[in-house]
């Protein structure tokens, strides 16, 4: 072979490699396996497992999957990071827990600052909701790539609204109470939300707090929720149960399942819940759910007092600092969060992706026309949503949840609850 031909061939090979998607090229050059920790009791897992199978088939890289439940995944991850066994290359984390993972120096930044090859490209960054990236960015560094979103929405029964002469969903707290009173009768409740002690009732309070114009923590990380806005928020939450009696009295035991079951079986006329409830209510066969309200599900932004906001969270993919093969992990993350994968997430999983462009994708409009208004609304909610992410989130939610619970059952006043919570949160964060 002549030298010229050799260099031409070589140039062609290099060019061909350059045209190959980055993740297949890099993955092919990596070790033969990549390990991932996944949380299986989430709506996301049903499409994530299919994507993992696709990745294996396309690249020949074996996926070593470690499955966990959301209830105890963080202690298990922490122990694995400490013991360096197993050495995950990728972990799926709810951003609620990311501050303590970052504080423990367990996660690698994904903005090129730790490894120039592990960097979310700018064009991809621009595609994510700003608020979504805010939830996975700490001290100016990106620590996770969001893969799905959950934000609070209002669901309501269009048929019951029509019966009661209500023409549109409530936009203010006063309207919420007024409508809920009209709809509470004969075993049917006007409204429902997650209210069990822990992150659940803390989340509900967090949303009411921001809707009242308050903030959870100040810029120094100290409690700011025991403010006038905080008092209005908790008083409103307590009054919905004890004064207006428009939520079931057992609301202080309700997790996600109780709220969605009550809406789907027709017990609740309105509910504050997550985006996946729309799919469960209107496309129940795809969800394997039973819906007595099919065809009657309305959805809207949450009512508010001062600020029109909702709380939200991401599930995100992260790379532990103990990863055996961080580059292989990054290649997998890029695959799982590529536009094609996110499109698959929406079309197959009926889940909310973190990529804005997917909401306007022609295939979504063509294949899911009935979802388009829903997606438009959700994208709008995400523009102003507030991440439910703060330091020591799990411990803070636990202590706050206990004090909020006492106020909900009338053992203490909302002011006493907020003051006690603030003192306990200060002690917790101080350690």
């Amino acid at each position: 072979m002549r030298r010229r031909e050799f260099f031409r061939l070589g140039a062609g090979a290099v060019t061909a490699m350059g045209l190959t998607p980055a993740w297949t090229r890099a993955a092919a050059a990596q070790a033969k396996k990549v390990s991932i920790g996944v949380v299986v009791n989430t709506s996301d897992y049903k499409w994530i497992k299919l994507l993992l199978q696709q990745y294996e088939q396309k690249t020949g890289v074996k996926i070593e999957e470690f499955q966990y439940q959301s209830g105890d995944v963080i202690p298990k991850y922490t122990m694995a990071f400490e013991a360096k066994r197993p050495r995950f290359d990728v972990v799926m984390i709810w951003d609620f827990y990311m501050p303590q993972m970052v504080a423990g120096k367990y996660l690698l930044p994904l903005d090129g600052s730790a490894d120039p090859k592990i960097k979310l490209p700018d064009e991809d960054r621009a595609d994510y909701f700003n608020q979504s990236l805010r939830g996975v960015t700490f001290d100016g560094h990106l620590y996770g790539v969001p893969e799905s979103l959950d934000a609070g929405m209002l669901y309501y029964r269009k048929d019951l609204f029509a019966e009661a002469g209500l023409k549109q969903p409530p936009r203010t707290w006063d309207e919420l109470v007024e409508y809920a009173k009209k709809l509470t009768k004969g075993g049917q409740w006007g409204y429902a939300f997650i209210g069990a002690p822990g992150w659940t009732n803390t989340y509900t309070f967090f949303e009411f707090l921001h809707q009242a114009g308050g903030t959870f923590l100040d810029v120094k990380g100290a409690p700011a929720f025991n403010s006038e806005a905080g008092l209005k928020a908790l008083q409103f939450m307590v009054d919905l149960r004890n004064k207006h009696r428009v939520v079931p009295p057992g609301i202080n035991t309700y997790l996600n399942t109780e709220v969605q079951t009550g809406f789907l079986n027709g017990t609740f006329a309105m509910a504050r819940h997550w985006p996946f409830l729309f799919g469960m209510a209107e496309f129940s066969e795809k969800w394997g759910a039973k819906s007595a309200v099919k065809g009657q599900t309305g959805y809207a932004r949450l009512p508010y007092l001062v600020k029109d906001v909702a709380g939200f969270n991401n599930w995100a993919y992260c790379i532990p600092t103990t990863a055996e093969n961080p580059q292989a992990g990054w290649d997998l993350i890029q695959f799982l969060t590529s536009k094609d994968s996110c499109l698959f997430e929406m079309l197959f999983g009926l889940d909310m992706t973190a990529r804005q462009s997917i909401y306007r994708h022609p295939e979504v409009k063509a294949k899911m026309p009935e979802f388009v208004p829903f997606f438009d609304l959700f994208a709008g909610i995400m523009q102003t949503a507030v991440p439910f992410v703060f330091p020591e989130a799990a411990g803070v939610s636990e202590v706050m949840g206990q004090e909020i619970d006492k106020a909900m059952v009338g053992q203490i006043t909302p002011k006493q609850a907020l003051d006690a919570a603030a003192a306990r949160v200060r002690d917790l964060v101080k350690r």
Partner: protein
Amino acid sequence: MAYGFILPSLALIGGVMAYPMFYSFYLSFHFRILSRPRLGTPFVGLANYLEAFRDPLFLRALWQTVYFSVVSILAECVIGLGVALLLNQRFRGRNVTRGLVLLPWMLSPVVAAFTWAWLLNDAYGLVNFLLMKLGVLHGPVLWLGDVGWAMGTIIVVDVWREVPFVAVVLLAGLQSIPDELYEAARIDGATPGQSFVAVTLPLLKPSFMVALLMRTMIAIRLFELVFIMTKGGPASTTEMLATFTYKEAFIKFNMGYSAATSVIMLLLSLGISLVYIRTMGGETALR
């Protein structure tokens, strides 16, 4: 050679039980936040134990655990004895009935907890629905969300689940009592009630001790029913030592403190067991 045969079991027990127990004991004298490894694991002496006895939430959980254990075990013993006496009679279908009685105990505690949580839901649970339909209730009861009802509800569910175990243990004891003793008592003019007090109860003492010991150790570490049905609420009125320890360890990552509370649980369990053995472990004598 005998030691050679039991060595594998000892190694397994040592690895699975003894090492975690001793490590937990060691950790209880140290400060350790799992999510803050850079803070290290400094020795703090008895600080964790002192903190526990100054912590109103821990003291509340301790009291509620003792209260729950005493009430539920007492109920289980009384009802269990009644069930055992019934099952000791001869009647048609006795063997099938014995099997059916065991069903609640055979259910996994997690499955039982979830099932009861659904049945007792205030808005759409079957219990409220049926009781209102029968006219027993005029409105729904907040079985799990009311401070006055929640602990009682947990106790009732636990009794439902554990009575079969107590009944089976006592039934075994009843069946080991020779008929001749009852015959002798009858000949001496004893009434059935007198036979029960003078013959049955004393000879059932060993079985009672087994049932009490086992149930006490399990009751003190009650977790699933509370965690699934109430999460320790409402207003911490069903918080138990086990759920408290879990939250300290796996939500707040306060490993040193949670190790101390788990050692306190162990000591409580051991202490009560010793009391049982001393008071009830003596020779069984007939009056």
